[in-house]
């Protein structure tokens, strides 16, 4: 009788470099100074954040840069409580889509500064429609994680 096939396990590392382009580069330069920038579409008037070089609805170039608040409202959130490959940090942690004041689209980021004991505890502090404010890192490098997380204000 044939033996069951053995399994060989390995790990492949795949280093990458991505050119950020002019718009993303400028966005993150402003980020270092705690400024979240968006661009306004002159056709549909939507303010897009992060800043984009074109409007994805109208397909026109967006030239007007506007500063967005670092406060906003939670549009939706999720508590991740399961470990898997490629996670940004050890679970449990909370991800939210934040509608920043002055922007017309949501921004995905961490929601933090809350007790993570269990879902009920989290749900008492984090709710859809709840107000949040960015908690910035002391040393900023021009990266999306220059914001630690968005902290509930109420």
């Amino acid at each position: 009788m044939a033996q069951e096939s053995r399994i060989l396990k390995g790990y492949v590392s795949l280093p990458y470099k991505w050119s950020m382009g002019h718009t993303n580069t400028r966005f993150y330069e402003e980020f270092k100074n705690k400024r979240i920038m968006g661009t306004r579409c002159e056709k549909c008037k939507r303010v897009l954040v992060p800043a984009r070089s074109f409007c994805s609805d109208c397909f026109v170039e967006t030239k007007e840069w506007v500063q967005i608040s670092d406060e906003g409202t939670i549009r939706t959130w999720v508590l991740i409580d399961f470990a898997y490959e490629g996670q940004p940090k050890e679970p449990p942690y909370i991800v939210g889509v934040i509608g920043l004041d002055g922007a017309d689209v949501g921004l995905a980021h961490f929601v933090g500064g809350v007790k993570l004991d269990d879902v009920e505890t989290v749900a008492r502090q984090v709710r859809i429609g709840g107000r949040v404010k960015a908690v910035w890192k002391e040393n900023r490098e021009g990266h999306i994680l220059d914001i630690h997380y968005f902290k509930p204000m109420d």
Partner: protein
Amino acid sequence: MGRPAFRSHIPASIVASGMFDLVLVLGAEKMYEGDPQGTMATVADPFFQRPFLAGAPGIFSLQCNEWAHRYGIDETRVRMAAAELSVRNHDAALLNPYAHIRIKISVDDVLKSRVIAYPVRLLDVCPASDGACAVIMASERMAKKLGRPAAWIKGVGYCGEQAFFGEGDKVVWRSAINAAKSAYDQAGITNPRKELDVAEVYNPFTFQEMLFYECFGFCDFGHGCELVEQGVVMKGGDLPCDPSGGTLCTNPIGATGLQRVSEVVLQVTGKAEERQVGGAKTGLAHAMGGLDQFNGIMIISRER
């Protein structure tokens, strides 16, 4: 990840255009070898979204929480309807020799399974599968020449949207609505709930299946749970969904969209054996992918 949906749509247009008479469409995936979540963790762009949208369960839970909140659907009610859908899919998979997860479970098992990304629990989530699927697409001329029973593609719809997760509305979900609408228009379907006999909804997560019912016009927005509670989408209902056990029980990603198509073909040609939906003439096959941003629909019928 967007490819499973494309896989059936492009060959269909190649045959319809007259370029070829006979096309073999093949989808295959061996997910055992890699780590699917490792791949999912790199779907989002590296500049803005990757840390937050790593892995599939989180993305779909964000969507489901927004949906339930938008329509004020009570959490207990959503959980119960999702659990019933999980049981329906698992029961169906027991009758499908091609299904991956074939286990008998109860509503209680689903409600008590461990949380992955709240409110999504283990039995609300699809597995990582190895699998393949093949469909032969033929022109009318070739189908007649071969003289074998065939199903007809009546309508094809495909729609993509922004790669920024926060930009589009994922509840009144434009790509899902538009894909269904264009397929219905081609097929001459005005009342999908009445005119469809079966649907294979791409359902890697139980909650999402109900959101799709709404986007596909099976019911009004905010009323997806009712279709489960009233038995409409259950076995023996007016519009039974996922008689194959769905993506929830078998998900070899590169073949999963095509499997929705093949199941509907088997159903409308009366070849689905133990899981046959009685009298099924016309069905809907659906695929979804990308960063929750692509949807494809195909309407398939026994009648020309």
